[in-house]
């Protein structure tokens, strides 16, 4: 029990700072890919990428209508897994998992 009567476990500020840094760095990498596949491949570089094709679709067009969505999904899956590992590493993995 804590002073405020809750039964939450208390963690150290330093561990939190290091946990937070790891989180931010992961987040920035993932958001970079997020922007690259949509705003990059799907929009800005589309005219260039359209000279290549995937199956019967121009590549830039395919990224805008299919590929970006698949990558978004993969990004969230990586995030869920990496965050779980980061939390474990800092001793704050969620008990309710």
């Amino acid at each position, binding site marked *: 029990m804590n002073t405020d009567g809750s039964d*939450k476990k208390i*963690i150290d500020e330093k561990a939190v700072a290091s946990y937070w840094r790891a989180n931010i760095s992961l987040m920035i990498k993932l958001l970079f890919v997020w922007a690259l596949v949509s705003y990059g491949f799907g929009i800005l570089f589309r005219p260039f990428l359209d000279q290549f094709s995937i*199956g*019967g*679709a121009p590549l830039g067009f395919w990224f805008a209508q299919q590929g970006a969505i698949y990558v978004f999904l993969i990004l*969230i*899956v990586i*995030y869920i897994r990496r965050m779980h590992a980061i939390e474990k590493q800092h001793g*704050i993995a*969620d008990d309710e998992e």
Partner: protein
Amino acid sequence: MDANFWTWFFVIGTFSLYIGIAIWSRAGSTDDFYVAGHDVPPLLNGMATAADWMSAASFISMAGLIAFMGYSGSVYLMGWTGGYVLLALLFAPYLRKFGKFTVPDFVGDRYYSDTARTVAALCALFVSFTYIAGQMKGVGVAFSSFLGVPFELGVFIGMGIVFFYAVLGGMKGITYTQVAQYCVLIFAYLVPAIFISLMITGNAIPQLGFISDVKGTDISMLSKLNQVVTDLGFKAYTDNTKSTQDVFFITLALMVGTAGLPHVIIRFFTVPSAAGARKSAGWALFFIALLYTTAPAVGAFARYNFIDTVHESTYEVADAQDGAKLTPDWFKDWEQTDLVGWDDKNGDGKLQYLAGDENEVTVNRDIMVLANPQIANLPGWVIGLVVAGGLAAALSTAAGLLLVISSSISHDIGRKLLFKNMTDKQELRLARIAAGVAVVLAGMLGIYPLGFVAQVVAFAFGLAAASFFPILLLGIFDKRMNKEGAIAGMLVGLFFTASYIIKFKFFDGRPPADQNWLFGISPEGIGSIGMILNFSVSLVVSRLTPPPPQHIQDMVDEIRVPTGYQVGRVDDLPHAAE
């Protein structure tokens, strides 16, 4: 069995299921009513979020919209899915850890200000009412065009059913009904999509058919489509019909707008933990992507098939010469609903579908999904299924919005602002009354649409992008952000976005209004600029004014760690030596 029988069969069957779920999951407390007791499993919450998110417009209109916009339709595909990455990484786990009921709750507490709370509550109300009117109208349209029920009666039936499970069950009832509605709508969407993909490309998976060759040839479906539409004078399907910067900013506004929509955010309050919120966002995107990656395939197939069967077809069987192409039956059936039309301008008895003035065929984009079962010659029960799917999409979204409306009134404005010593029981009663009144209002908006309802959809995303997104993000990631910065940023973002949309949507809508657009950005995409303005103003103002009080900074530390933990200095703890 005819289609009418099957339509009634599926509609009555699914509606009974929703009512059954509502009775089983009655809400007993405000906790149940607002956040389903915080104990919805992440996978189920993902399904519920997908149903919540995908409205009548996603189900019925999106594929058709893409069919006619081609590449430019990608703004909806990327915009309405990319927002979930932002939700998962930036909002869901932290807002869940915060552990309250509503979005204005977070804004009011984090910025220690009732002004901020009120602005947020009013925004939430405005955005939700904008959205819900379209859903109730969709229910009325589905009933009147498929079942011959008068439009108003259709809206009343929809109101009745939503009233029943939203008012009785609150978030708990809504969540489990949405899970059932997701199953109905995705099945109803995929079955015709699979058959039409098989028909055109011979590939049963629409996402693969999309990049395959036209059946029996070695030319890809998309190149064939490009060739066919350019022959008729349209721009190539895979080419952009908007400017690049407009596509960029509309996509951005839709993405951040999605991440800032209150009815989506509150779904993540219902799972048990912060990690659960992350998982749940992943499941939500998975379930949404099933439909959103199918839609562009359906759009392209439908456009191809439409031209292939309708263009240059002979209308009257008697006029047809040997080997002439006859106008398909589904075209004639749908002519009665005015979704398609034909005006034989050159009197040759054939339908010409062209880009220029000689075009004789008018076509509503919704036909692309609605007529799919007939186009693919599917049995009558598939048509019934599509109707039940469209109703499921409309009802599930309406219910989610209803909850935001009711909680904004009973919780944010009622308990937190006006009657601070209300008991839990009184608040629950107020929430139910507010939900009831909102259902009636939404139904009225569906029956008597204000002329501008269609115009204000741009508002919902623009305002969410320019108001909620920046202040939620800064509230979590910038500890120094204070009440002055947040309020100033929110007001500037709102004012700028609202005035731009009002100027171009209501006063200056006629072409060539786009010549006056700021950086060539249409009103749909202006929320992105509003968001950037909000960020800049908040950051500058907050640095010129005092930092937030210590307990607020501690609260930010708190929401950054997973559920079940609290931040402290190890030295202060009795067991520090361990």
